[in-house]
């Protein structure tokens, strides 16, 4: 090993340390931003070292030029997307970055394989190449479909066409047969067949999964991309790729498990598909059976409370009402009301999404409480204000025998009184009635979240000054 090579390899090690340290700093909101910068620094270092490594190799001019052109296009596109995306659309963006990452990992393996395929290809290269392209191609198309579903470009309902299982199994068979072929006789054409089959499998895998389960799918595909990148590291014999890919694979796996648990779904049942659309039909509990309240009554109830717990859900974000909620909470806080936010692990469209949305509305993060922390406080709350949350507040989860059974919920029904702001009696993802709405301490304020919260603030000001 030359001195240059030694320095470069040590530099890659430093980059890997930066990735681990960066993830570690994400343990607390106070250090998380620094963590991301440390991680980005590691990435920059790895890129600079690779440029140096390439320069010492003296390659032809065309490769680097083509590379630079691609980097420019991708860099501009990535920067624009990152700057312009609405915080509510974060899950789609994560999915899109999964897609391109997985796609790039697959393409790298194809290029390397095509270069080697003239001569004999070792078992190690064949195995890791096949794993890389299969996982990468599946992730590419699967993530695009997932992003399309969340963005509304592909229907959020499960797409259950007849024979989909047979089609899926056939594609798996093609992939396996192609893989066996590649071990016997190296062939770029066969590798392409394997890729196409894997890409088709990605579509068939995600289409039958309902929009409500998409966050779990995205997290799983994140783990897939990490694994594909690690496999590319094996193909190219690059430790940096192996370490970074393994880190992402592990994090994606953990998040998938956490998310599935919080939604009361197993990863397997998510992948089998056919559950949840996000747009439930009107409920069987007639809107007449519940107690209604008015903006003025609700405003007085809130203004004279000592402790208010706000329970935000995706409906809040969909109505873009975070800022109105934050304004109302500030107003109440100014009157001496103790206001807290109760955040369910899957509030929003992915875990932690609600925290980001409220952060965007300038809500200080110490006011946000996680489920286990806030649940004992509900009996002490004068008012629980539910805005756009549904299934995660349904007391039916404590009983067996229904779609939300066993799901961890916020104990909203234990508060002294409950105000629910909701447009209609429509269902949540689980597609069942929310027993909270029929509770004797619950009153419903049927309105759009954004205007209702603004009206509440105005009413608090005029009625109690």
């Amino acid at each position, binding site marked *: 090993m030359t001195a240059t090579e030694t320095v470069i390899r040590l530099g890659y090690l430093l980059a890997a340390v930066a990735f681990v340290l960066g993830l570690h700093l994400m343990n607390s909101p106070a250090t998380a931003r620094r963590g991301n910068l440390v991680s980005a620094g590691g990435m920059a270092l790895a890129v600079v070292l690779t440029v140096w490594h390439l320069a010492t190799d003296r390659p032809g001019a065309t490769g680097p030029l083509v590379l630079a052109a691609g980097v420019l296009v991708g860099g501009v596109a990535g920067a624009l997307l990152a700057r312009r995306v609405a915080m509510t659309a*974060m899950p789609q963006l994560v999915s899109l970055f999964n897609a391109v990452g997985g796609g*790039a990992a697959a393409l790298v393996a194809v290029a390397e394989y095509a270069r080697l395929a003239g001569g004999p290809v070792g078992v190690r290269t064949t195995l890791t190449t096949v794993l890389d392209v299969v996982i990468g191609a599946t992730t590419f198309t699967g993530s695009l479909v997932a992003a399309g579903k969340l963005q509304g470009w592909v229907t959020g309902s499960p797409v259950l066409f007849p024979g989909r299982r047979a089609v899926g199994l056939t594609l798996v068979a093609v992939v396996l047969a192609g893989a066996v072929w590649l071990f016997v006789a190296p062939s770029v054409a066969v590798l392409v067949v394997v890729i196409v089959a894997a890409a088709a499998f990605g579509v068939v895998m995600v289409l039958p999964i309902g929009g409500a389960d998409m966050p779990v799918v995205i997290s799983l595909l994140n783990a897939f991309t990490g694994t594909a990148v690690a496999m590319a590291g094996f193909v190219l014999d690059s430790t940096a790729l192996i370490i970074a890919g393994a880190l992402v694979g592990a994090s994606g796996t953990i998040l998938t498990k956490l998310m599935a648990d919080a939604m009361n779904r197993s990863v397997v049942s998510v992948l089998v598909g056919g559950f949840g659309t996000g747009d439930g039909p009107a409920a069987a509990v007639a809107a007449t059976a519940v107690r209604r309240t008015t903006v003025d009554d609700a405003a007085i109830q809130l203004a004279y409370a000592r402790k208010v717990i706000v329970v935000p859900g995706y409906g809040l974000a969909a109505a873009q009402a975070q800022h109105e909620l934050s304004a109302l909470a500030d107003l109440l806080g100014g009157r001496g009301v103790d206001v807290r936010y109760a955040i369910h692990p899957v509030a929003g469209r992915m875990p932690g999404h609600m925290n980001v949305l409220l952060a965007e509305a300038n809500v200080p993060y110490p006011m946000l409480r996680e489920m286990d922390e806030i649940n004992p406080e509900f009996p002490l709350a004068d008012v629980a204000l539910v805005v756009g949350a549904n299934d995660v507040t349904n007391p039916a989860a404590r009983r067996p025998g229904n779609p939300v059974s066993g799901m961890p919920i916020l104990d909203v029904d234990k508060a002294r009184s409950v105000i629910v702001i909701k447009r209609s009696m429509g269902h949540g993802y689980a597609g069942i009635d929310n027993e909270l709405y029929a509770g004797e301490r619950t009153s419903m304020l049927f309105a759009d979240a954004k205007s209702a919260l603004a009206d509440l603030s105005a009413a608090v000001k005029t009625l109690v000054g």
Partner: protein
Amino acid sequence: MSVALLTDLTVFVLAVLVGFEVISKVPATLHTPLMSGANSIHGIILIGVMIIAGEARTVPEYALVAVAAAFATANVVGGYLVTDRMLEMFRR
């Protein structure tokens, strides 16, 4: 199995374990930025694309490099920027 492969495998397994250990301590509050941040890290495939670019000699290879470079760079640049944008908003 060669020594090189065994070494790579060792590194892979240990990195997975480190990943589990580090990630499982992150609070739910930060799960969205965490997923986005982890996402940027798999943009490291850009290094792979650069290695391939140095070896490419044919037109199909150049085409693969161009597309893969665009994909990987979008992943890296977009991922880090959007994660920073999110974390910047978290305040006491």
